[in-house]
């Protein structure tokens, strides 16, 4: 071992204790975040908005605008754009609402017919199912349970109204991230002793890099999902392959649950638009299963998992752990939370086990103590 190596203390890397702590803290955070989703969701949206608006703000600062002015300008322009888009889209949405309601009913009916046909086909092959009147029972229960579309719209509308104030926090938070992000980082840096300063700065940069990489990974994953699914649907001849691909890829942001919703959507479209060809719906299901397998075991580890520098096995296992600990919110949050906790945990482990850094910190403290008591 060289002198410099012995001087710089030990650096054993992340051991099992550090990793066990990382996983335990991730689970604890997911459990807590589940309780304050009203704050976590706008915080995440604000982060996405921050990474989206950061480049134009930097451009304005470069052209001589103050940081405050640039942050206010980009947020104002963004909100203005959203308001204009909302005003422009609203009349069109109102005009087509009735059509969409009919279309939705048509697709739901198509799905029910497909289910009915499939169950009756099963009854033909298995007399036990026919004796149990499986097709009639399931169909009547679904018809009774599904009710009218208006019954479902009401809770959705109430949910949107309840979440609206919380979601309006997102641009507000994004503005302060843009305006005061650097100050906050500097504030955190100032609170750290000199001996750990470089390591801590590195840690803050890694967290920033990890968050950025996660959101960029998510965008890449969405593009890959869209292309694969749209290509498959186009080959099958299902109408609107690109639109369906985009919707399903966005729904897949919620692992597993979003995928199931996306799959149902594709099957409904296939069953309704091809009522005389039930095979089409089965092909759509097969395609969707293949895309989901590709997504969960290849695309996600390659994009989000790779961007967070996580082992593919850890990525998949942690998604299951997240779902078990905190349900749907756990599925959505597990990877970004794990990424950030991993960086903090690994860096803290390195600092705490570095004997030289700890010795330098003790020396600095003794110097400060001596200075404080010099004239006593």
């Amino acid at each position, binding site marked *: 071992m*060289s*002198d*410099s*190596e012995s*001087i*710089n203390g030990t650096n054993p890397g992340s051991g099992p204790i550090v990793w066990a702590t990382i996983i335990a803290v991730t689970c604890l955070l997911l459990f807590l975040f589940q309780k304050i989703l009203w704050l976590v969701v706008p915080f995440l949206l604000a982060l996405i908005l921050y990474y989206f608006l950061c*480049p134009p703000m*930097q451009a304005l*600062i*470069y*052209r*001589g*605008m*103050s*940081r405050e*002015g640039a942050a206010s*300008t980009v947020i104002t322009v963004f909100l203005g754009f959203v308001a204009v888009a909302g005003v422009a889209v609203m009349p069109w949405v109102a005009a087509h609402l009735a059509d969409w309601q009919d279309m939705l009913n048509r697709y739901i009916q198509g799905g029910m017919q497909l289910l009915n046909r499939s169950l009756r086909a099963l009854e033909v092959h298995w007399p036990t199912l026919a004796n149990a009147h499986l097709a009639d029972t399931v169909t009547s229960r679904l018809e009774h349970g599904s009710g009218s579309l208006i019954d479902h719209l009401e809770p959705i509308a109430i949910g949107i109204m309840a979440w609206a104030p919380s979601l309006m926090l997102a641009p507000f938070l994004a503005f302060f991230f843009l305006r005061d992000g*650097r100050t906050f980082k*500097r504030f955190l*840096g*100032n609170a750290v002793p*000199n*001996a750990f*300063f*470089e*390591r801590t*700065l*590195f840690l803050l*940069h890694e967290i920033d*890099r990890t968050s950025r990489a996660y959101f960029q990974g998510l965008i890449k994953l969405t593009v890959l999902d869209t292309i694969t699914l749209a290509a498959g649907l186009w080959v099958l001849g299902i109408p609107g392959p690109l639109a369906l691909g985009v919707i399903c890829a966005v729904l897949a942001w919620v692992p597993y649950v979003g995928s199931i919703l996306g799959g149902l959507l594709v099957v409904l479209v296939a069953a309704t638009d091809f009522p005389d060809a039930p095979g089409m719906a089965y092909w759509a299901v097969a395609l969707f299963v293949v895309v989901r397998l590709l997504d969960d075991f290849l695309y996600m580890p390659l994009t989000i998992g790779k961007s967070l520098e996580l082992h593919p096995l850890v990525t998949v296992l942690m998604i299951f752990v997240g779902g078990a600990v905190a349900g749907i919110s756990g599925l959505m949050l597990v990877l970004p939370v794990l990424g950030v906790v991993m960086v903090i945990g690994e860096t803290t482990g390195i600092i705490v086990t570095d004997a*030289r850094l700890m010795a*330098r910190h003790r*020396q*600095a403290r003794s*110097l*400060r103590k001596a*200075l404080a008591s010099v004239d006593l």
Partner: protein
Amino acid sequence: MVSLFRPKKTTPRLERLRNLSLFVNLTPPELRIVDGLLHERDYLAGEVIFDEGEEGQAIYIVASGEVLICRQGQGEIGAVAHLSAGTFFGELALLDNSPRSAQARAATASQLIVFFRDDFVGLLDTHARIASKISRELARHLGARMRDMALAYGAHQHL
């Protein structure tokens, strides 16, 4: 609206930054951007800033006080250089993450400005013009140091 883009008056802090050799060619708007990336640290006399062999993450600029660059643990006996206000050290950390080649200690109570490598790399992506101006000053500094070393080596040979 147009007034928003008018050149703004420079502040004493920006003037102080502009007097530092590394940022001497930057305009006030460029200095404002760089200022947002800098950190200030206070060190007491005798406090270690970094050790020889440590992985370098940042360049240090002496804002006030004096810094001793020396062989690891040798203090004044192993002194390589004494740096005063306006100069900088640890500059190779901006280029790669190679180990520090010497130890740095505050010779007197000092205030240092710290410029982190990842911020510099980010600047190369977002503000290549600013990064190129800083790089040029860095290259000049390294060139001058190489000349000094060559001269010292030549003088030694001559002796």
